[in-house]
């Protein structure tokens, strides 16, 4: 593997931020580590970037990180506010004492690639958030890093820009074949653009695999809950909800996602609609069934609060005894 993170731990003033995190990234891969705020994601990037030292563990890279470093693109982009776009992008090259002509050529080539050539003389404060992000990416890419580290690349973007940005990151990442590690709490975008994703919860990497595999087999309720709303259905309700099969055979409980729940109005149904929240293409339907609260997406516009409904489960998640 190109980049190997082995048993990485870090604590601040006695508070563990990362606990024995291990994973590997192949050359040219884009990996996203997802997790809620405060789960240790940014610390992980700072350790890999060499900005902080781990308490334990190793970071091995097939490239020499002192020669071709891992460059971090910060969440707020951290463009130097007193420098123009050109000077920001040139910063890393000038720090390497590259000849003025070479700096100009490489910077302009990078600015042109990122569609920023026209903005070269502007100050960061004169740019939109999306433009600032591209300047930060150009500034990182121009020094030819071994690994590109992206800290919450979607955090400062409007909802409708996030998808396009994910596609843009994926396209330039593939074009440059740059090994990229991104940390984010935007699940959809991470899944769209990544070769693999890892779920970091409370400083521990709980799951690491292809996006589809992580989503379909989260392995624990904690991971599944982070990926979407999940109800833990106890064994006593398996028959009522039609949960059967080998996986459910010995399980004490299974996890059920809202999109895997079918709801039909039925006066004889076992569940009662408690709440309906209109969410555009569907309504979020919260139901109670024998003491359990279950969530479903329904397109039935006739559904009302207090209706009795029949609930069937299309698929469920094995929770490995964890609650």
């Amino acid at each position: 593997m190109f980049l190997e993170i082995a048993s990485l731990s870090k604590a601040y003033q006695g508070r563990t931020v990362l606990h024995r995190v291990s994973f590997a990234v192949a050359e040219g891969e884009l990996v996203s580590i997802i997790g809620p705020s405060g789960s240790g994601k940014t610390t992980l990037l700072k350790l890999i970037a060499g900005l902080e030292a781990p308490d334990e563990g190793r970071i091995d890279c097939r490239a020499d990180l002192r020669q071709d470093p891992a460059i971090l693109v910060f969440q707020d982009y951290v463009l130097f506010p007193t420098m123009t776009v050109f000077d920001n992008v040139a910063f890393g090259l000038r720090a390497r004492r590259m000849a003025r002509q070479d700096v100009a050529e490489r910077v302009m080539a990078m600015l042109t690639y990122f569609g920023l050539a026209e903005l070269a003389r502007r100050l960061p404060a004169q740019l939109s958030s999306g433009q600032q992000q591209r300047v930060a990416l150009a500034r990182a890419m121009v020094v030819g890093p071994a690994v590109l580290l992206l800290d919450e690349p979607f955090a400062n973007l409007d909802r409708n820009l996030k998808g396009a940005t994910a596609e843009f990151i994926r396209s330039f990442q593939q074009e440059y074949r740059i090994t990229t590690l991104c940390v984010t709490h935007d699940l959809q975008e991470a899944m769209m653009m990544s070769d693999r994703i890892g779920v970091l919860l409370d400083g521990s990497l709980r799951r690491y695999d292809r996006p589809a595999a992580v989503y379909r087999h989260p392995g624990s309720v904690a991971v599944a809950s982070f990926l979407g709303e999940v109800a833990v259905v106890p064994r006593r309700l398996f028959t009522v909800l039609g949960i059967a099969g080998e996986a459910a055979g010995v399980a004490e409980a299974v996890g059920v996602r809202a999109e895997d729940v079918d709801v039909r109005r039925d006066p004889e149904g076992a569940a009662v609609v408690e709440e309906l929240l209109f969410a555009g293409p569907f309504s979020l339907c919260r139901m109670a069934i024998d003491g359990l609260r279950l969530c479903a997406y329904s397109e039935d516009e006739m559904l009302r609060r207090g209706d009795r409904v029949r609930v069937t489960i299309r698929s469920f998640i094995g929770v490995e005894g964890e609650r």
Partner: protein
Amino acid sequence: MRWALLLLALATFFALPLALLLVNALSSSWAFPDLLPAAWDGRALRFLWRHGDDIARALLSSTLYSLAAVLLTLLMTILPAKLFARHDFSGKRLLEGLLLLPALLPPMVFALGAHVVFLRLGLADTAPGVVLILAVVSYPYMLRALTAGYQAYGENFAQCAINLGASPLRVLLTVELPLLLPSLVAGGTIVFLVAFSDYFLVFLIGGGSVPAYSGYIFPLLNSSDRSVASLLTLVFLVVPLVFFVVIDRGLARYKLVGRAEG
């Protein structure tokens, strides 16, 4: 109405004293209870013209040692300011308090002790000695301003620059100092004014061999020649005013930068 009151207050506190100086400078006698001077004359102006070289020399000397004091306080305080802004350690509050002492204690307390040391070190009666003593009494203003400056933006700028391959010196010169410039101007302005208007320390440590405008003007202020003293006081104001205008123009760019995130 509020604007009118504000204008009145500004006029009372700023314009009126200047107007009084100007009237004093252009009159030969202005005694109570006259509303205006009994006689006008240009004697003070003629004095200024006659002693122009001496005045200019004193003004230049004061400007140069005051600027040198600003530079020295910057060098003295830049690293402590970063330390105070970025790190927490036991005894930090106490240390911060102790470092403010020179601004709180009367300069004489410092100067008398320092004078003996400066004599031994050969710094007495020298320009470097004057710069050093002025820096020692005025660095707390710079320290406070720079600490606030460092606190105003996060550590990320320096970390980002280091990650991009910059040396600590390059980070300081190309990233941190430009970001600190507004704070540096704020602290530097006070240090400059303290140094520029100081009379006692410059006289004691400079021993008369370092020309000082405050030293030039002081005897005139004590004399009965209010006309010349008033005009020279107005001249005294010119240097800081010129600096303020130059700095304000220089910082115009920062009005854009000011919106940048930290």
